[in-house]
């Protein structure tokens, strides 16, 4: 748009088509999107080689706004669609944008199996602790005792630790940060995309309009301040006594290991069997 100076991020936005975006005032999704495209700009990836896949939900609206190959799919199925894309064209960089409900409730099975296969997909999970698009129902990451429209007396269910889930399922790169830590997000996105294997980046975010109001979390800025003040790095956590780390968001790269990547394994298999004779 002529009114906006040509910053590098505007090269990556479909700014003449779909803006302003659908997200509410103060929603962290926009902040995360900014961090992601800054990371991609830093990496100088060819936009033709990036496929951004999403499911359904607030965060899943993200692909529409970016000028990549974008695929906005069904609720919970983003990782399964991404698996198809990646398997057929392994040279594409496949990034899945998903939310807590999309990825861990309806799409939980696809998450654990993609992690188990260690297929080279970068999952960026924006965790706002609620179903925002449908109006504030409890999600698997809604904290215990928090209020949601389907938990009007307080949530009695325990919440998911998504990073632990991904690590347990075999993801080879797992990191967590918050939307407030934009530079850290940018760096982790780069790390996650560069990692050859399944990578899960959980970005703790805020939903000021629905979750924030239901739970009296204050203004959008207050919610970001909460992220700033209530999160500590993994390194800091290890130094501090346990009582000081309780209830804090732990940021950092929680797991990184080298394990055979799935499309590589499949390429090996093809090489092996193609050496043999046809039937």
């Amino acid at each position, binding site marked *: 748009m002529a009114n906006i100076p040509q910053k590098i991020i505007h090269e990556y936005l479909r700014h003449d088509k779909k803006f302003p975006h659908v997200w509410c005032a103060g929603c962290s999704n926009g902040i995360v999107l900014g961090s992601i495209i800054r990371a991609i700009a830093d990496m100088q*990836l060819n936009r033709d080689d990036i496929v951004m896949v999403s499911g359904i939900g607030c965060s899943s609206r993200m692909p529409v706004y970016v000028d990549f190959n974008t695929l906005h*799919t069904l609720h919970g199925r983003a990782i399964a669609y991404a698996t198809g894309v990646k398997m057929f064209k392994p040279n594409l960089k496949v990034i899945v944008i998903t939310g807590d409900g999309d990825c861990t409730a309806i799409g939980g099975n696809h998450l654990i199996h993609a992690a188990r296969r260690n297929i080279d997909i970068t999952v960026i999970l924006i965790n706002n602790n609620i179903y925002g698009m449908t109006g504030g129902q409890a999600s698997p990451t809604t904290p215990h005792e928090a209020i949601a429209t389907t938990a009007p007396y307080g949530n009695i269910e325990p919440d998911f630790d998504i990073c632990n889930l991904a690590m347990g399922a075999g993801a080879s790169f797992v990191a967590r940060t918050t939307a407030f830590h934009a530079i850290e997000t940018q760096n982790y996105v780069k790390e996650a995309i560069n990692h050859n294997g399944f990578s899960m980046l959980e970005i703790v975010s805020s939903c000021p309009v629905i979750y924030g109001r239901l739970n009296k979390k204050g203004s959008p800025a207050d919610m970001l301040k909460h992220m700033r003040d209530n999160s500590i790095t993994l390194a800091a956590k290890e130094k501090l006594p346990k009582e000081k780390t309780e209830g804090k968001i732990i940021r950092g790269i929680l797991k990184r290991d080298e394990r055979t990547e799935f499309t590589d394994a499949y390429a090996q298999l093809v090489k092996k069997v193609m050496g043999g004779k046809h039937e």
Partner: protein
Amino acid sequence: MPTKIKKIAKPVEEKPVTPAKSGRKIRLMQGNEAVALGALDAGVNFFAGYPITPSTEIAEILALELPKRGGVFIQMEDEIASISAITGASLAGAKSLTATSGPGFSLMQEGIGFAKITETPCVVVNVQRNGPSTGMPTSPAQGDIMQSRWGSHGDSPAIVLYPDSVKESYELTIRAVNLAEKYRTCVILLLDEVIGHMREAVTLPDIANIRIVSRIKPTIPRHWYKHYDENQKYLSPLASFGEGYRYNVTGLTHDALGFPTNKPNEANDMMERLRKKISYNIRDLVQIESREMEDAKIAIFTAGITARAAKSAVAAARAEGIPVGLLRPLTIWPFPDDAVRKMLRNVETVIVPELNQGQLIHEIRRLTKDKQDGNLIPIQRANGTLITPNEILRIIREVH
């Protein structure tokens, strides 16, 4: 934090798939095997599936064959993931296929709707088994005829093919892949359990004699590309991911570029486009077999395995001098309205045998409103056994 920048050096390349060489001699072949070989000969280079009786042989054969030809086989975590993966792969340029049976087909419905609204070519093979629910996994039924048309929510047209022999399973699989590519939609191939597992002697045609259709690729510059171009009888070019046409695909109602829209006129355009690309091309889509219909006063209308019993009954009845004929749609959806109406014009009685509690008969009833109710005779059963030639013959004798 230092970050290594890994550039993508490898060029984007389509996976070539070498055609099947096996089986050109006459040989005994299962229906499911014929589907797998048909898929390979049609150029299918991506399969994702989940085990389910009675379709599993298709996955097993493709697991063996696809890697040998440079294609992709992947066993997914469920049927929902399978339809998702084949749709994703198709957008990346693959000719893709999955195979399942009733319970899995039910799970796939949302994904089939997605492939239809996004106009992404793919093929779903449904080897029908007895239902509802888990039903009888190794027993035949024709209970998915309506589901294959109306299974996914919202209005969407369907292309559904229905073979009645092993040879035809091979041919219609190729046709299903071709139609999917041409019409940019999810084409469904319905098989009966008995046909999937039946063995017949089949000679496959030479690969050189098989007509293969592939999607039209855009040749225009990126900025002119519309993912849903309105030209050419609604059959528009399709770019793959990685080819430089950075388009958006969404299951939301979308405009010609593929971006979500709520505008009634754009929504209308999209819905009409989905409908017209089938209805404007109905002559290309419809295939129907007619046997002994020239002078027939009694017609049997049926599809799939039940048509095999009907053919036998027709032959026997003709030997007794009864003027009976058979109509069998190879394409059951879109329903061959005009052809059926025309062929039933001089017929007094129509018998509709089917392995369900009445599905095909609704279409015939719709087309034969002018005939008395007593002239439309159902033979219906959903207990896991086939309708036999004798049962049909008995009815033919009764009405004669």
